[in-house]
């Protein structure tokens, strides 16, 4: 793992994520503060990226939008990773009926297209992050379960696991201390992949007005709002498009980088 920063994607991503998460303590404008006299004002010393249709500071809105995208996607990915891995490891180790049951449940979740599941939840529970995070978490649980399950199946019969079992270690110790570190690699790769997918889904739902709610900034919503005024204010549209695309490309590149680091054999084929 010492080479984790050996790729430019990892470094750039870290800068973006840390910068966005620190947004509340950085000397930025209030992303919600309107300024009617500054509607559509161009870039200036105090507003680096200009102001939007309500005179709000575009740079601050971009940073805070990225922050909410990261917070929502990150917490959804963490939740689904914990739940999915626990189910997958337990199913793969215990085997039998409970394994079959768990895997069937995962198949059922996979029958629902993620975007539609999120929309169903928004209908029933109302739109917003409090609905979005649990739905995204639910959507990605099966992917972690499958990865964990498959990895446990190959690891559980290995000699080092047998050795720990023969030493009399309790099952919980075998699962969390012996098996989990052995299968962590693919799970980390899956995690970075899920964060990228969540960012895409979150931005899409926000574009439809079902994710982050106005006036809170979100990249998807900024793209949707700026389309009407594109001819006069192209930058208002290009900036969120560019930031979103760059973040997703970086996340995907980081995902490939992790895969390469953790499993050099399999990644050479592609």
């Amino acid at each position, binding site marked *: 793992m010492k080479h984790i920063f050996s790729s430019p994607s990892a470094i750039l991503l870290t800068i973006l994520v840390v910068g966005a998460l620190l947004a509340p303590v950085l000397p930025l404008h209030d992303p919600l503060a309107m300024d009617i006299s500054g509607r559509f004002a161009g870039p200036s010393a105090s507003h680096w990226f200009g102001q939007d249709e309500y005179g709000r500071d575009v740079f601050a809105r971009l940073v805070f939008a990225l922050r909410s995208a990261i917070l929502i996607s990150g917490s959804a990915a963490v939740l689904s990773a914990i739940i999915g891995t626990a189910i997958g490891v337990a199913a793969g180790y215990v085997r039998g009926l409970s394994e079959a049951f768990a895997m069937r449940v995962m198949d059922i979740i996979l*029958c629902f297209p993620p*975007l*539609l599941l999120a*929309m*169903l939840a928004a*209908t029933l529970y109302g739109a917003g992050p409090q609905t979005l995070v649990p739905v995204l978490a639910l959507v990605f649980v099966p992917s972690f379960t499958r990865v964990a399950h498959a990895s446990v199946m190959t690891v559980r019969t290995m000699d080092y696991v047998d050795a720990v079992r023969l030493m009399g270690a309790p099952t919980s110790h075998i699962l969390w201390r012996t098996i989990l570190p052995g299968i962590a690699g693919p799970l980390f790769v899956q995690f970075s992949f899920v964060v990228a997918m969540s960012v895409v889904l979150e931005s899409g739902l926000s574009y439809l007005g079902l994710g982050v709610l106005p006036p809170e900034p979100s990249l998807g919503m900024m*793209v949707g709002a700026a389309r009407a005024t594109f001819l006069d204010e192209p930058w208002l549209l290009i900036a969120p*498009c560019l930031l979103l*695309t760059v973040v*997703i490309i970086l996340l995907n590149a980081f995902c490939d980088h992790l895969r390469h680091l953790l499993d050099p054999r399999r990644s050479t084929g592609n």
Partner: protein
Amino acid sequence: MGWFIRRIVQSVIMLWIVVSLVFLSIHFVPGDPVELLLSQDGAAPDPAMVAMVREQLGLNRPVLEQYLDKLGELARFDLGTSIVDFSPVATEIGKRLPRTLELIAAAAIISLLIGLPSGVLAARNPKSMFSRGAMFVAGAAQSIPVFVVGTLLVIVFAQLLGWLPAGGFVPFSRDPGKHMLLLIMPAATIAIGLSAVVFRITRSSMLEVLPQDFIRTARAKGVPARRVMIRHALRNALMPVITVFALQLGGLLAGTVLVETVFNWPGLSGMLVAGVNARDYPVVTGVIVVVAAFYIGLNLLVDIIYGLTDPRVRK
């Protein structure tokens, strides 16, 4: 034969579970679901309205009775009526589904036309500039969110160049030319991401086939290079491409939501988004059940084709 029947029964059970879960989802909501659906911006809804909608959704009857009725209705393709304008949901879906399918079909054809040849070309010489460049472009094409791609296409081809209309829909029967013109951009938007997928799968599948003995044999007996690539290699590399492609198409049925919104294409998505915004529960569940049924059906179809072409799968 047993394998096929088992696979079909599995899909039917899956569909039944999905339908049941969607039906039951309204009962998972804490509090009174109807009051929740009807309350706008925190204001309490009119009690008479609540009673009427509860009656309409059948929520005043025992849950088991509601559930059995619902299954019966579904078996007759009755998806209930909208709680906003009381129109039958199935009729509206019947009108809109073909438009969404048309969009997907057009995107599928475009992406096969782009993805397959470029994948074969890239596999012929994986170290070439073309291959590397195409891999990079495909990676980027898959990364950009589809509504960003759509928005950028509108800006470039509709607003800056003025070559194509920014969006809308005209029935084919009224004006075929205009209809196709309006189809180009939304279809291209979907096709950009999809052709990247086809390209990558084709390329890696070809790279696995090309080093095999029968390709060497074909070359050795003097088959022209082009014929080896297409008749010998591509035919054998096609299976994974078909599988991934079919699964992608199932996902697209849901993924077109964003594209249809960008281009005002009146497919399923407009109905769905309006349904979600109005919290029109029957409309939303109707669309979801139809899409999930398509998705499950497509998976079944892929498996059956697989089973027919490769007997080893049927174990």
